[in-house]
């Protein structure tokens, strides 16, 4: 038999775990100002994350999905984007969102149980997508709108390793390929979909190769290497803006945290695997590289940590001081033109909530 098609998947890494730079690195590797900016946002995301978990543990935040260990991917992706591109996240890409102008208080507001958190500063970006993989089609649809209008904008859509098992993942990359849409899809392969390891999720050696089935380029990148992630996404976005269609990027990283604050990963994960993953974590790596360039030292590290802590504290204050939304909010954003029956229910909710807040638990009297 003859071979009718053959494929290969490339892997991109510039910084190894010790922060050594490989030959052939892009100009970004010597742009210290940009690298310091990225490092700052990575540190901010990690500081925010630790604080958010702390808030959840003390009853001040709802269930929260940690981004610990994903910082290079999240910041690298966002740094590659233009402000008027559109991001469709999953639910833990806080580093991307903070880079794109979303206030940390908005993130806390949403995870604290308030939809107003989704009315955030990145006006065209999607809110978090909890159902898994359905955001792939939003990214494709946005890119279709951009293509129809002849704009030079792109959509960037995240998905997790578990999400690649969903039909919507394939539907998204397939339609994007079939219509050469200006879209970039980033799989954040952190090896664990709650308790299910990647080996149980799929028989494929890489997730990037799933691009082959959609007829689009697929590339694997070291997701803990901020330089490699940003470079790979920049290349994919440039390709999309040229009209050459979508790219699927698999960023290899590790979820150093539990899945969410409602999860206990020690039930299913070998601690030696987690300890080993910590040696490859993204902040350490970029910091080591910056130190080699004499662009970083312990004093600056301490100053940055204090600065990030202050910023996070200010966001927490803003979040905690946000007044509870009105019960009207349940009704007022469903429709531009609410039906009469809904307005009647809104009035009913107002009356009932007023009684509830006054302490009436059904006896007709106040307790």
């Amino acid at each position, binding site marked *: 038999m003859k071979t009718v098609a053959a494929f290969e998947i490339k892997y991109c890494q510039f910084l190894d775990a010790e922060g050594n730079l490989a030959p052939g690195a892009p100009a970004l590797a010597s742009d210290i100002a940009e690298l310091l900016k990225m490092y700052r946002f990575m540190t901010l995301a990690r500081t925010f994350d630790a604080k958010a978990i702390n808030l959840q543990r003390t009853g001040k935040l709802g269930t929260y999905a940690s981004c610990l260990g994903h910082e290079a991917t999240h910041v690298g992706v966002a740094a590659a984007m233009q402000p008027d591109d559109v991001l469709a996240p999953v639910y833990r890409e806080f580093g991307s969102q903070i880079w794109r102008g979303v206030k940390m208080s908005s993130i806390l507001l949403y995870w604290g149980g308030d939809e107003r958190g989704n009315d955030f500063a990145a006006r065209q970006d999607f809110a978090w997508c909890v159902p898994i993989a359905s955001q792939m089609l939003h990214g494709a*649809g946005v890119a*279709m*709108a951009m*293509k129809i209008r002849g704009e030079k904008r792109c959509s960037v859509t995240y998905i997790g390793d578990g999400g690649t098992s969903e039909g*919507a993942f394939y539907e998204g990359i*397939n*339609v994007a390929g079939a219509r050469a849409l200006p879209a970039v899809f980033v799989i954040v392969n952190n090896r664990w979909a709650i308790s299910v390891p990647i080996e149980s999720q799929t028989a494929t050696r890489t997730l990037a190769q799933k691009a082959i089935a959609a007829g689009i380029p697929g590339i694997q990148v070291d997701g803990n290497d901020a330089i490699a992630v940003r470079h790979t996404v920049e290349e994919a976005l440039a390709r999309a803006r040229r009209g050459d269609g979508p790219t699927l990027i698999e960023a290899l990283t590790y979820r150093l945290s539990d899945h969410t604050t409602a999860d206990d990963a020690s039930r299913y994960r070998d601690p030696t695997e987690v300890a080993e993953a910590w040696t490859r974590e993204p902040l350490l790596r970029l910091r080591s590289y910056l130190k080699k360039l004499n662009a970083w030292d312990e004093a600056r590290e301490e100053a940055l940590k204090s600065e990030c802590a202050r910023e996070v504290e200010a966001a927490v204050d803003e979040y905690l001081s946000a007044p509870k939304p009105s019960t009207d909010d349940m009704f007022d*954003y*469903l*429709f531009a033109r609410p039906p009469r029956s809904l307005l009647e229910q809104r009035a009913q909710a107002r009356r009932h909530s007023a009684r509830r807040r006054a302490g009436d638990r059904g006896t007709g009297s106040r307790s």
Partner: protein
Amino acid sequence: MAKVTMIEAINRAHAWEMAHDPSVIVLGEDVGVNGGVFRATAGLQEQFGKDRVQDTPLAEGMIAGMAVGMATQGLKPVAEIQFMGFIYPALDQIGNHMVRMRNRTRGRLTCPLVVRMPHGGGIHAPEHHSESLEAILAHHAGLRVVCPSSPARAYGLLLAAIRDPDPVIFLEPARLYRLVKQEITDDGCALPLDVCYRLREGSDVTLVTWGAMVTETLSAAEILANEGVSCEVLDLATLSPIDHETILESVVKTGRLVVVHEAPRNCGIGAEIAATVAERALYDLHAPIKRVTGYDTIIPLSRLEHDYIPDAARITDAVRETLTE
């Protein structure tokens, strides 16, 4: 003025709105070159081009999800699902995203879009081509569900649906696509959503129905008129939100209510109408409310489908029962 079938009326509504609003985009399986399997979009791709009338890959969830993405960018997608039995893969997008987008972003992102599809049986179609699943859709907050019963209402209500700033499911009774021709004025005039249409005035009993059942119900009303029974017939038209006020006003006048729908009885929209009338007008009723519906079975294949779908005989029986209570 021209006499057209419902499918032609739907086609003209698309064409009018596409010509007057460049943000309207049609997408779906076979809607472009082929003009749709029922020809609802015939000729539109030639007129408006492949960007605005798109043949999509074959995946309903993808069609609905793409429509959501496009709508958040300010386009007005009009998506076709080829048959209602194929809506299930799209429910994830409809229920988890389309209907929630405005609410969960506090109005920052919205979904002004229409998802159209044939509805109901009676056309000797294969399995999964004859479903009446409106209750599943109507149960979603944040969604309008519309079902016309004549060429003129298909034209006017589709225009209204496309112009609505929120998502609308537009159910087209497949049985009525080519059943009758009606004069319509192709002038871009929309009809109001969220209201019932009174098709026949009467004083003895109120019949509420929609879609293909409107034809059967009007036939039943005609038969009953010959017996001296005066039926008021309301076409629900917007199945969600329901125009309860018009129904209540009619029931207060007639004192009797029969709801007719092709969909199964269990948890059907008829139950919602009956419950609301019972809550708000029980003492105006002279007889118990009746429902004439499809059975709580799977809609059978073509050899039995007319034993399943309510007809004028079942409707007249129900009306006579309410009159003898």
